[in-house]
Structures are given as C-alpha cells and as structure tokens.
C-alpha cells in the first residue's frame, strides 16, 4: 500500500517540472526561473535536513556552506573570465566555467569546511551548538565582506552562466532541468541515506545517544559525518544558486540566510525527505504573493511562520499526511 505521505511527496515533486513546462508553454521564462530557484533552495534545505532532521543537529550556520559553494563558483568562473590562473605554484590551477568541475570543487570545499567547523562545534550540544555554528557563520561572513580580492561587500558578478556539456545553460528551461536533476539525485541519495545503516544509527543517536554508545557506536563520529555530508549538499546548492544569479556576494553567508534555509526545512516538516521542497516552494510563493501585496510583507511571513511553529508541528507535509508513521 502506498502511504499518504509518499503520494503527497510524488505529487509535490511532479509539480515543480510541471510548473516549469507550463511556464515554457505560456512563454513566461521568469516562472521557470522561480521554479529553478525553488529547486536550488530546496536542495540547500535537503542538505540542512541531513544534519537537522536526521541527526538532530540544529545548525544556525549553514549559510557558511551555502556561501562557500557560491564563492567556489564565483572564484573559479571569475578567473576563467579574466584568464588569470588561480594559482601558479606549486601547481598551475586555472579557473573554469564547467559546471561539473565547479560542483566538485564546491562540494569538496564545503565538505572540508564542514569537517573543520563540525569537528569543533560537535564538542558542544544544545544551545551551545546552535550558537557556535552561528558564530562560525558570522566569522566567514565578516571575512567575505572585508576580503578585497573577490569584491568584498560588492560581491562578484559572472556575466555568463557556466556551461554544462551538451546543454545551453542560459536557456531557463535547460538550466531548470540541470537544477532539477541534481535535486532529484540528491533526494534519492538522501532517501537512501536515511534508510541505510548509517541513517539508522544517526537517527538513533538523535533519539538517544546513550543507546548508540552502548551498542559500541560513537555518536560524535556519526554526527560529524552527517554534518560533512550536510555541508557538502548545501555547498552544492550554493554553487547552483550563484549560477542562477550569475552573482555571488557575502549575503550568501549572512545569518538570515541560515535562518531562511532553516525555514524551508521547518515549513515543510523537519526530517521529512520532501519537506524542504514543500518549504522552499511555499516560501518563494509567499515572497511573491505577499511581496506584491504590501511593502511590509515580512509581518505576514513572520505571522505565518509563527502559526506553523505553534500549531502545525509536522510542517506542511505533516499537516497533509497526518501523524508520522514508523516504517521499516
């Protein structure tokens, strides 16, 4: 029997490309751009959800990885644009405009950062963890603002979107396809992850770390690996987001960005695989509907968020699917 939540997930998932295709047919390229934005922000949320939903790690510093991914793209592409190599000694490293290469670099760079930040932060728990991740995010934010080499506060503009073999990424629908396929692949991976041995142990460590220790597994290492995977996915989303805008700036590192990524996860439902997709879609929709209604739309957004937190604890998918069912 197909569970109700699974049904909702697939419906949601299909909605995104359907929207993009209808927009293509109606010649509304901006709607495609919005759908692309949803896909990319959802990807960032899926990344956070690995740490937050599965591992119970409330990171208020995921903008750090989002920003690192963004700057990986910005730095590589700007060097390619100006034909100035990134590094000459000891090995020659040149910039690139190839998306797969940029993604790889973004994933590696943000995973590395997550390893360092996680190794230090995971020594703490609870509020301390929330605050230390916030502090690391702020550290990178201030660094990015005052680091003149790549534009400082002004950020970096990349005038032409990076390339993907065989595709014209400047065509909105083709870029959407790229982002959507990446999202689908990561969702598939995250779904498998949650059911794999690692996911079982990680989620157990969230529910009861003592239990996990007693069966001879170290929660710290489980969490660290989860944090690294989570950071890597969010970093990948950052690289795509930078490509969507053809622009990176330190605001990608800001703590409001961390808050927004967290909002996508919560709006959709913490720990639910497709939660971030629903959350990001709703957020973007609200931004455009409410933003058109009033200059003060943040008031309504805040009110809505408050209602979700207070009265709809499973998020939107939780509301629609009813109580979470344990499954094995």
């Amino acid at each position, binding site marked *: 029997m197909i569970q109700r939540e699974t049904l909702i997930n697939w419906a949601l998932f299909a909605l995104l490309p359907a929207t993009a295709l209808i927009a293509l047919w109606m010649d509304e390229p901006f709607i495609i751009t919005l759908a692309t934005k949803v896909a990319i922000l959802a990807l960032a949320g899926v990344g956070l959800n690995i740490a*937050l939903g599965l591992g119970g790690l*409330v990171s*208020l510093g995921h903008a750090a990885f989002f920003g690192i991914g963004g700057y990986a793209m910005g730095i590589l592409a700007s060097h390619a644009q100006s034909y100035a190599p990134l590094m000459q000694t000891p090995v020659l490293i040149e910039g690139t405009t190839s998306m797969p290469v940029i993604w790889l670099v973004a994933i590696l760079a943000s995973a590395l950062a997550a390893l360092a930040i996680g190794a*230090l932060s995971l*020594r*703490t*728990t*609870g*509020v*301390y963890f*929330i*605050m*230390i991740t*916030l*502090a*690391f995010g*702020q*550290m990178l934010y*201030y*660094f990015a*603002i*005052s*680091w*003149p080499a790549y534009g400082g506060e002004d950020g970096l503009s990349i005038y032409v979107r990076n390339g993907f073999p065989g595709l014209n990424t400047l065509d909105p629908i083709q870029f959407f396809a790229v982002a959507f396929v990446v999202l689908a692949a990561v969702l598939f991976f995250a779904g498998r992850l949650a059911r794999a041995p690692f996911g079982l142990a990680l989620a157990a460590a969230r529910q009861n770390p003592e239990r996990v220790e007693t069966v001879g597994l170290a929660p710290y290492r489980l969490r660290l690996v989860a944090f690294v995977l989570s950071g890597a996915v969010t970093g990948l989303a950052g690289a795509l987001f930078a490509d969507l805008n053809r622009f990176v700036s330190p605001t990608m590192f800001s*703590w409001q960005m961390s*808050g927004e990524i*967290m*909002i996508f996860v*919560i709006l959709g439902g*913490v720990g639910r695989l497709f939660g971030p997709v629903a959350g990001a879609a709703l957020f973007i929709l609200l931004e455009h509907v409410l933003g058109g209604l009033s200059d*003060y*739309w*943040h*008031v309504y*957004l*805040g*009110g*809505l*968020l*408050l209602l979700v*937190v*207070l009265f709809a*604890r499973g998020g939107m998918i939780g509301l629609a699917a009813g109580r979470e069912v344990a499954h094995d």
Partner: protein
Amino acid sequence: MSLILLIEQVLNGLQFGVMLFLMAAGLTLIFGVMGLINLAHGSLYMVGAFAAAAVAGLTGSFVLALLASLIAAAAAGALVELLVIRRLYDRDHLDQVLATFALILMFSEGTRWVFGSFPLFLDIPAALAQPVSLPGGILYPAYRLLIIAIGLAIAVGLFQLIARTRIGIQIRAGEADREMIAALGVDISKLYTLVFALGAALAGLAGALVGAIQSVQVGMGEPVLILAFVVIVIGGIGSIKGALVGALLVGLTDTLGGVLLPPLFATFMEASSASSVGSSLASMSIYILMAAVLLYKPTGLFGSTT
C-alpha cells in the same frame, strides 16, 4: 600608542561591555529559568529605543524617555510572553529559534510600519554632552561614564535581587529544578512572565541608552543580539556572573582588537592593506574568542557542566 589613549580605549571597551551585559543578562536569565532561546531579544532592545525616542520627542525629558523605554519594553515582553513565548517552553530549541525568528520579522516590519523607514532622533541630555576630565589628563565623554555607572549599578542590583529577595530565591529554584518551584507553591506562569518582562526591560533600557549616542532605527537590535549571544555562550548560559564576565571580555576584545590589530599588522605590512587586513581580523576576533572558549570549556566559563 600613548598610555592615555590606551586607558581611554579600555574605558570604551568597558562601556561597550557594560551595555552588552544589559542585553545578555536578560537573555541568560530567560534561558536559565525557562530554558528558552529568545532571538527576539534584539527586538525588545529596538522597542526600548523607539519608545525613548518617541517620548523624548514629545516631552523633551531624557529621564522620562528612559522610563518609557523600561515600561514599553517590559510591556512588549510581557505581551509576547503571554501570547507566544509560553507555548514554547516545552518545545525543543529548534521550535524556539524559529518562532522567535518569526517574531523578529514581525517586530522589525511592524516598527517600520508605525514609525516609518527613517531613523528617529534621540539625543543625550545637554548636561551630559560635554566630556569630563579624569585623573591623568584623560578627557572622557560624561554620558559614556554614565552608561558604565548605570550598567555596573544594574549588575550589582541584579546580583542582590537574585541573592537576597524572594523573587531571587524563586529564580534560583527555577534554574535548579522546575518541578521543585511548583512544589514551593509559586505561581510558575506568573514568575515566567515576570522574568521575561524583567529581561525585556533591561534590553529596552540598553536600547534607549545606546540609541541616544547611536541611531534609533529598524534592525538596530540584530547585531547587538548576536553579540549578546556570543557573550552568554562565553560566560555560560544561565549564569549572571558569566554574562558580566563574558560581556566585559567581548567588549574589551572588540574595542582593543579594532584599535591594536591594524597598527600591529602595520609593523610588517604596507600601511593601507594592514589597516584593511587588521580590521577584517578585528571584526572576526570575538567569534574566534568564542570558539576558543568553547573548545576549552564546551559549556562556557561559568556554565553548569550537565
């Protein structure tokens, strides 16, 4: 750098630290007693500043303005506690972070709705607008000395309140054991509202005091909020003593870092890039301090180890 300049900068760090303490004390009390992370604390700071500016504009009295900041922030705090916050006590930190993040959005845009987009005017009283001479030939703004004095007085008052009074006993009992306090026959929800309003009033007062020498504008609370969090995390969440020590540490590190690092870098770098690199590092310095403290003691300097 001359000694006089250095002493003056230490005073500046002290003043900044004392102001941070007013913010951090409320945050840490609220966490200690209710176990709540309140991101919207910065909004109460902003409410205090706006109330003070509005009242000062109407009456011209700075004392009334300070009073208004206390009352308005306490009232806003109590209201928010009654309507929203009390539903969050049994929730996990994640829900608290989100709900209070939502409150920030509402407070900020709501204030802009009421007061408009431009900064408001709030000035210090003329009597304090001149610097005073300190021993050793140091000229120091009278108003900043006043902030230091008020801050220290409040610190002493808070310690007394917690050590000596009935409410203090209840607060300590609440920190130690939430069930015990109910067993003592204390109306726990009233106590919570009271503590929240107290914390809010302190934040509001800080907003008004600082608003008079800075600018009263929407969003003024967030940078201070983050610093206040750094303070209580360094000091140990729930500890008033920790908040005081943490606030002074952060205040001094931030001020002295900004003053000392650029010339330090200038000793081995070209002047203008030294200034730029030095001030970048200075702006990161308190976060580095915080990370270092947490690595050494994962629950802060005065935090309980459990």
